[in-house]
């Protein structure tokens, strides 16, 4: 039986067990998100997809839709909250869009533009982070990791390799590699692994390619992310 809930005043159908995010995506409605990828179990950590369901603040990617639920998504209040979250993500890491090879095809940048964030406003943390270039085909730039855990989930759930994990607590939380040296080059990671395809930012990148796509033809150069979709949807192009 098809049931419905209301999203920004619009009636949205959903199936039993679907989350607000899944039902909204099926209906062609965009809810901004970073750590959500429909191929993996929702994680609910980035909080960018936060909506108001019956007046409660919830992550739309982990909250099941219910009959006649009243959901707010594109309100100025929620967009404002998202901008604040994104502001914090930008200053916690070292996200230098103008020089970054992922610029124009980066989900963090695209979601920031979508929510109306044009520049970081908080004080930069300038954390000391490194680049792991030990693997012949793939580099990890830890400066850009936003801890979405998509690589962790992809490596564990689809590749069956368990190469990535999240270590540390609080502000010291960081991505770590499962090898004695901590280097990607000492794992059996392969450039064709699913974990190499899901990074929404410029943290896990194929080496030697960089800026091969000219400005104007990059993923989000012409249309916003609400129309184009996620980075992971376009990895094979």
């Amino acid at each position: 039986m098809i049931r419905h809930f209301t999203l920004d005043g619009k009636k949205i159908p959903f199936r039993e067990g679907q989350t607000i995010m899944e039902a909204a995506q099926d209906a062609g409605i965009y809810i901004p998100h970073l750590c959500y990828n429909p191929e993996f179990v929702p994680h609910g950590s980035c909080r960018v997809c936060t909506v108001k369901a019956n007046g409660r603040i919830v992550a739309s990617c982990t909250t099941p839709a219910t009959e006649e639920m009243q959901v707010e998504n594109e309100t100025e209040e929620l967009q404002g909250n998202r901008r604040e979250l994104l502001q914090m993500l930008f200053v916690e890491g070292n996200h230098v869009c103008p020089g970054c090879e992922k610029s124009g095809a980066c989900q963090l940048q695209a979601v920031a533009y979508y929510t109306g964030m044009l520049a970081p406003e908080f004080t930069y943390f300038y954390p000391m982070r490194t680049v792991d270039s030990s693997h012949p085909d793939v580099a990890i730039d830890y400066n850009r990791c936003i801890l979405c855990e998509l690589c962790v989930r992809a490596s564990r759930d689809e590749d069956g390799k368990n190469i990535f994990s999240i270590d540390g607590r609080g502000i010291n939380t960081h991505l770590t590699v499962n090898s004695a040296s901590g280097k990607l080059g000492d794992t059996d990671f392969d450039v064709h692994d699913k974990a190499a395809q899901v990074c929404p930012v410029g943290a896990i990148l194929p080496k030697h390619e960089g800026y091969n796509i000219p400005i104007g033809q990059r993923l989000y150069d012409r249309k916003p992310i609400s129309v184009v979709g996620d980075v992971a949807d376009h990895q094979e192009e």
Partner: protein
Amino acid sequence: MTDIKTLETASSPEKLNRVVIEPVTRVEGHGKVTLLLDDNNQVQQARLHIVEFRGFEKFIQGRPYWELPVLVQRLCGICPVSHHLAAAKAVDQLVGVDQLTPTAEKVRRLMHYGQTLQSHALHFFHLSSPDLLFGYDDAVAHRNIIGVLQDYPETAKQGVLLRKYGQEVIRLTAGKRIHGTGAIPGGVNKNLNQKEREFLLQDIDQMIEWGKTALELSISLFEKNLPNSRDFATNETNMLSLCREDGGLDIYHGGLRARRPDGSLIIDGIDYRDYEDYIHEQVKPWTYMKFPYLVAQGREEGTYRVGPLARINNCDFIDTPLAEKARLHFRAFADEGLVQSTLAYHWARMIELLHCTEAIRDLLNDPDISGTELITKGNMREKGIGVIEAPRGSLFHHYEIDEGGLVTRANLIVSTTNNNRAMNESIRRVAIDELNGRELTEPLLNQIEVAIRAYDPCLSCATHALGKMPLEVQLVDAEGHTVDRLYKNANGDVSLCKIEA
């Protein structure tokens, strides 16, 4: 008669009055000039300081090599393409590519001609022409591009539109006007399609005409007061530039060529990857900027100049007809040897501007520019050196990487550094010829800036807000008390403030 060589360091600086020009205006970036004068207003020391610390060579260490052309171009907002391409040429070597596809090389060349065109137009029309058109002592509020727009609207318009055209060439080859991504390891990421070629071709004949007019203007300004043009801030130096194998002018690629003041060759056809064997850098305690010199000539005799003056002096010919005709006229100005007049930089610059318009036309009509073979692959190497002729002169990029492709070492010798010693000598020449024994006035101090501007230095390689730069000149006595203060505020008003004892 003051010996110019004694003016680098005064023997008893503590007893002298200090005059500071900071910042130097109508140049790219921030610099300052300090003068030490004795009680009779005789200049005892004159130095050009570059006060900014950029740090690029350090903070690109640990970054992936393929980022270099995009990262290091942010040294500059005026000629980022030069850094973009010098880095790309170095990175080509890192990925084991010694020969690009014809399309890749021609797209890069087109980008570079567009860059040189816009930079030369900006420098001549926006920054230097006010001095040359109105005189060094014209009212400050009028001696700027707005004054040019008021008094010579057609000249100003042509300058602005020549620059705009160059920027459009950059946009269509690099992706955007400033800080594009066109050059990538082993080639380029786009060609020019038919529509883009037609867009640029529709205005190119007009640009060539305006290039001719700009050249004529530079010559007439040079000839207007010939003794001054010939001698102002002039010092005899060697000249260094890249030169094509057959001796032709080439601003994208070639071997290193250096000539003595008498025109004889010091080096020629040198593979620029061996630059460390021929050029060393001297460090002095009073400035962040190093002083390069030709090893074979030694520190003093090895001073050289780079940029338009050096290139037009050094080459045997230019392969576009209008520029070649202009070069012959230029070289005939020197009875023998090289043209050494510092103000002839502007003349040489406009010959190059005209050459750029002709070269852009030729490339736009070349079918290779729309070819589809964009990238060449090779085997990785650990060291890459790229040299290009930036608008201001020879630009060296040298990178070394580890096995993973991360940068371990970088050395950049930018054009302005190459001219450091010569610029210092030029301001000393002005100090001796124009300032000695005279009262401090703004027009007199502007002559120091006129000398610096001739070189078109990029002091910090960054843009600044034209006309909004405050300028303060202080006269400080031997006890450190400020005696005189000349202040130019953001709207151009100048006030002289007498300090009571």
